[in-house]
């Protein structure tokens, strides 16, 4: 069965159903065909035999009538003291005249001389003792022999075909018993009449042949001598019945003897009806067969579609999910109950996975945010040390004004850094935080740089992740102060196309394109080496999604701008 493993369920199901239906149909139609055919054949066979019997009865009654006449003549002849033409002519002649089938009646003595005859004049044939009818009759007592005499009558030299019925009889001449042969010549007309009356179907025919298998009579114009197919077939079967084919026509041949003669009759009855009904039957069975096969194919495919279509939908859906991020789509399946249940279970499972994944991501983000904020809020000890050192230095210089300014700035800087533990603060606060930082640094760096703020007032109310400007400014101070001239740091905040933009520019040495690429790479890299810029970008992305980013532009020795931007959250507009 291994080769079938890769076959889909619908093909398998269809194959099995069709095979089953096919074999069952084949068997049952074969059986029906065979049984019906046999039954029909035997009905036709019986019918043919019955017709044969009927025909034979007709012939037998004809011959019995002749024998009856013969018997009467025999008795009348034997009653006479002397049997001769004078005494018998009128009797014989009246019978020959009355009975249309009888041509003549004659009494021949044992030497072949005509003793009496119904003919008024006749030719005395000197060889009568050599005739078969004479020999047969004289040799066998008590039996009538019916023999065909081809092409001539015994007493008149004509060419008319006659049947000679002969029997040995006793008669008296002057009271002395004699042995002779009674000969009745019969017309073949009656034989023809009887056969013409029989309904044998198209091309059906009758042949009569004798004990030597010689054809005596045939109603078929194609069968004119003993070599014709009908006679050959009949001769081979001897007696009985058989289906035969003659000139392409199916016939049922039945052969029987005609009582009291030594003749056999073979009837050939057209049984084309068998093959035509055979054809009809097989066509009928064929149509039933084809229709049933087609219906079962349709039925099976509908059934299997009902099962496999939702299954395939489910499969496709699963593959899609496997190959993409569209985890959040539920599959909607109609069809076979079991598959629908399966799909529902799948949906529930997907929902659960989604819920779990969401939670996991959320948890991860929370954790990350916490980590990042923790990193950011770590007070750079150098910054604090340097600031305090500067304050000490200012105090020593008695520059109280600056000391106060510095200490206030430092304290406010830290207040905002802490922001009572909040991650997100209004942009105004963030800008204040940046200003305190840059104020402290300016004092520390002894006015080596100037700074300006260019703020779009409309964004002040918006919130921002805290502590994102300070690293940019720190970066600008550290790298953007030119030795030869006073540094300029420009901080710009504005909104544009639904994004909040912060730009921190300096007029320092600037960055080469290569350097910029390196910075981008560092920011995008996954290593945990934490750089201030990277931290900023990561936090922006965590809070505001992938559209939040950093953009660095630089003109060497002229101007370098770090721009960060993030989408304004819907609730804030």
């Amino acid at each position, binding site marked *: 069965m291994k080769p079938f493993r890769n076959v889909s369920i619908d093909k398998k199901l269809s194959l099995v159903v069709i095979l089953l239906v096919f074999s069952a149909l084949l068997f049952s139609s074969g059986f029906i065909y065979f049984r019906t055919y046999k039954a029909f054949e035997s009905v036709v066979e019986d019918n043919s035999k019955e017709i044969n019997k009927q025909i034979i009865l007709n012939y037998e009654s004809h011959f019995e009538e002749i024998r009856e006449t013969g*018997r009467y003549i025999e008795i009348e002849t034997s009653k006479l003291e002397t049997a001769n033409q004078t005494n018998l002519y009128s009797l014989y002649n009246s019978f020959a005249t009355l009975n249309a089938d009888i041509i003549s009646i004659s009494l021949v003595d044992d030497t072949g001389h005509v003793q009496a005859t119904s003919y008024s004049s006749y030719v005395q044939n000197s060889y009568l003792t050599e005739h078969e009818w004479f020999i047969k009759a004289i040799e066998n007592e008590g*039996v009538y022999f019916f023999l065909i005499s081809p092409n001539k009558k015994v007493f008149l030299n004509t060419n008319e075909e006659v049947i000679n019925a002969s029997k040995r009889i006793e008669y008296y001449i002057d009271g002395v018993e004699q042995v002779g042969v009674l000969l009745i010549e019969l017309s073949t007309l009656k034989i023809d009449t009887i056969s013409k009356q029989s309904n044998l179907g198209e091309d059906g025919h009758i042949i009569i042949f004798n004990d030597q298998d010689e054809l005596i009579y045939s109603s078929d114009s194609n069968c004119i001598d003993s070599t014709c197919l009908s006679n050959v077939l009949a001769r081979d079967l*001897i007696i009985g019945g058989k289906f035969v084919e003659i000139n392409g026509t199916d016939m049922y041949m039945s052969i029987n003897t005609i009582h009291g*003669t030594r003749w056999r009759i073979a009837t050939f009855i057209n049984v084309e009806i068998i093959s035509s009904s055979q054809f009809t039957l097989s066509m009928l069975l064929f149509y039933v067969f084809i229709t049933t096969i087609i219906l079962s194919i349709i039925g099976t495919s509908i059934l299997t579609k009902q099962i496999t279509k939702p299954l395939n939908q489910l499969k496709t859906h699963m593959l899609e999910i496997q190959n993409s991020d569209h985890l959040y789509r539920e599959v909607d399946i109609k069809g076979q109950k079991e598959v629908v249940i399966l799909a529902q279970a799948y949906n529930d499972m997907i929902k659960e996975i989604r819920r779990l994944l969401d939670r996991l991501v959320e948890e991860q983000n929370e954790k990350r945010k916490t980590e990042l904020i923790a990193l950011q809020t770590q007070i750079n000890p150098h910054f604090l040390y340097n600031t305090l050192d500067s304050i000490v230095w200012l105090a020593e210089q008695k520059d109280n004004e600056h000391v106060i300014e510095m200490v206030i700035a430092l304290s406010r800087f830290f207040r905002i850094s802490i922001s009572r533990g909040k991650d997100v603060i209004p942009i105004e606060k963030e800008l204040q935080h940046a200003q305190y930082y840059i104020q402290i640094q300016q004092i520390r760096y002894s006015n080596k740089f100037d700074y300006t703020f260019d703020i779009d007032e409309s964004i002040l109310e918006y919130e921002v992740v805290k502590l994102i400007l300070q690293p940019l400014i720190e970066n600008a101070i550290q790298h953007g102060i030119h030795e030869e001239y006073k540094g300029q740091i420009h901080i710009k905040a504005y909104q544009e196309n639904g994004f909040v933009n912060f730009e921190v520019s300096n007029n320092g040495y600037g960055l080469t394109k290569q350097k910029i690429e390196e910075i981008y790479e560092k920011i995008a890299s996954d290593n945990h080496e934490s750089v201030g810029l990277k931290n900023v970008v990561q936090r922006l992305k965590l809070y505001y999604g992938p559209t939040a980013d950093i953009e660095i532009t630089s003109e060497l020795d002229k101007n370098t701008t770090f721009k960060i931007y993030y989408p304004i959250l819907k609730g804030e507009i």
Partner: protein
Amino acid sequence: MKKFLIVLMSLMLFALTGCGDKDYEIPLIIYDFEDLYMQDFEDLIYLGDNYSEFHFVSYDSKNSQIIQNEIVSDVLLNDSNVIVVNPVDRLGVYPLIAKAKENNISIIFINREPIKEDLLLYDKLYYVGAKPEQSAEYQADIIINLFGGNPYALNEFDLNDDNVIQCVILKGEPGHQDAEIRTEMVIEELHNAGFEVEILTVEEAYFSQDLASQKMRDLLPLYGESMEIVIANNDAMAIGAINVLIEEGFFVDENLDGIIDRATEVWFPVVGIDGLPIAVELIEKGYLYGTVLNDSETMAQAINELAYLLVRGLGMNDFSFVIEDNKYIWIDYKKIY
């Protein structure tokens, strides 16, 4: 298990062969079950079945050669190599012979003798029967005995004392071999023995008892006075005649004991042929003068023995009957009077 199978197999084999011989069927195809004589004959054939090798199975041809042809065609398909056929049509058996020859099957013909030409067609054909002329010879003997045996001085049964036997003949079916031969031969035998016979009439009663009664009733007014004996071709016709003769006072059972005492009571001579049990009974009661027994019992024995030899494929040397021309087994008639 193997042993068990072997035992089982041999048991089955035993069952097959043990009864097998007895199961060997020889079809006995009778021309007509309605024929009383054939019924008796059939019974005798069954009774004579003392061989364990086979048994007979009867078929009724219903007096139709067509049916007989069908039966023979059917039984030839069975595995019996011997069939017994009582032909319907004496002339119509040659196709059956051809069929049997084709299948190499022996046929024993009984009761109706096929013509010689047909019996010569094939060497495995036999006829068991009686020569019809012999029955007539024996019937003539009985008649001669009745009239005292001397053709020149007939005894008191020559009622008119003219030394001529005045007889009425009841003939069977005209054209029937038995009827023709019996009628002809009985007269011929009487002639041969030197007796003069005057046939008052030959009435065709077709071997039938009823028809014979009818014919008898018709002819009595004409020949009742002159007839001295009624000669019937068979017992049935003789009985038919006797029934009428009793009515007409030709038999008078004076003491009403159901028996005619020929010495003291009135009776009239009627002779038949066949020796039917009822005819034999009537002879004992003094009604029927005599009959010729068609010795069916001996024929039945001959048929059985012949069938046995043929079934076993034995030669005819062991056959206890005389076989003529390797075809004919002639069984003698018996005179009963």
